[in-house]
């Protein structure tokens, strides 16, 4: 299995999942900052030019964070990264979709890449401020409606936690102080050996 990632990007969440599973995989680094995902060797694998991208053992390519997370969890039931029952699995998907479809692209992308939103440079600080405000609102909603205890969902630790982790990892980068519930979750994640290994791999 080949895992295409960019250090510190949302692919960090998939990196954590692969470390949790603990089976060998080949990590390949492409930097989104220097346009690595638009180069021909990357485009040949994923024409959407996005990380995370997973090349499975049969050569087939899987894209989209939610899909990769869901597939990895289901394909490795022994790692217990998703509940067995359909309702628990649906809640995991719902959370993945909210984190990857709303919190990341609506809240954080505005802060990281304001030029993708407003062409006029003078407007970009407003885009960043709007993104920060949106991200804070989403995180407050998440904290206020927290259904789990130590982990995000009542069913226990799951791939949804690794998705929330990449968001938490970004908070300090953009100067967001997350609500207490989420800060505690971040600390619990940082204490996991798989998270420490993923961070060390990406920093190396």
């Amino acid at each position, binding site marked *: 299995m080949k895992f295409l990632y960019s250090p510190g990007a949302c692919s960090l969440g998939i990196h954590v999942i692969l470390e949790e599973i603990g089976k060998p995989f080949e990590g390949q680094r492409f930097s989104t900052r220097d346009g690595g995902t638009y180069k021909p060797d990357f485009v040949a694998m994923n*024409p*959407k030019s996005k990380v995370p991208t997973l090349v*499975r053992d*049969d050569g*087939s390519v*899987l*894209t*989209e*964070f*939610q*899909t990769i997370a*869901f*597939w990895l969890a*289901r*394909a490795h039931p022994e790692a217990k990264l998703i509940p067995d029952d*359909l309702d628990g*699995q*649906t*809640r995991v*998907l*719902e959370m*993945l*979709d*909210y984190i*990857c*479809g*709303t919190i990341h*692209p*609506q809240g954080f992308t505005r802060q990281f890449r304001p030029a*993708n*939103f*407003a*062409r*006029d440079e*003078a*407007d970009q600080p*407003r*885009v960043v401020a*709007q993104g920060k405000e949106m991200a804070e609102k989403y995180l407050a*909603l998440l904290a206020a*409606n927290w259904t789990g205890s130590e982990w995000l969902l009542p069913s226990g630790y799951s791939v949804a936690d690794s998705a929330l982790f990449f968001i938490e990892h970004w908070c300090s980068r953009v100067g967001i102080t997350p609500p207490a519930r989420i800060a505690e979750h971040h600390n619990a994640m940082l204490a996991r050996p798989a998270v420490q290994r993923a961070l060390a791999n990406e920093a190396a």
Partner: protein
Amino acid sequence: MKLFYAPGACSLGIHLLLEEIGRPYEAEVLNLREGAQFKPEFTAINMKSKVPTLVRGDGSVLTEYPAIAYYLAATNPEAKLLPADPAMAAKALEFTDFAVATMHMQGFSRMFRPANFAPSEADHEAVKARGREIYEKGLAVMDKALDGRDYLCGDFSIADSALFYVCFWWVARMGQALPANVAAHYARMLARPAVARTMATEGLA
């Protein structure tokens, strides 16, 4: 089971899946133009103020298009809305995520609501153009995936419902043309009785 939807919104895709399943359900229109999604009656159900929202038989609420679609497919296996092979089922989710999170939320959201992206009105045309570019790149990915296939995963699946609504917006709301394979897929979708019933119910036919 009760679906909250807005006519012609992305909830159209979930609405048609409920028609494909063919079991009784309730549907309630949420008037997004009047801001019904922000009123306390609705935020008590879905704090995210979004359609589609599904209230299940036990009163629990499910949100997010791919999660609702997956749940409906998994709880109604006889409707065959998800491929049985796990690798192919993952592909169905992948196409669904791409249609919803990229073609809709990155592409159309820029075309429909440029003010949410750029504060200056002078930039709005550029935002719309960027949205169009993102959407058209998505169409090209889908067109390639449909090469030699009737539906995205071979047989009809939840992925087709998501592709259908982003094509409906392009064709019916924007008067644009689809690439050949996607156009054939769109025609095939419109010919499905469940889709025709949904379009009629939502007043879109």
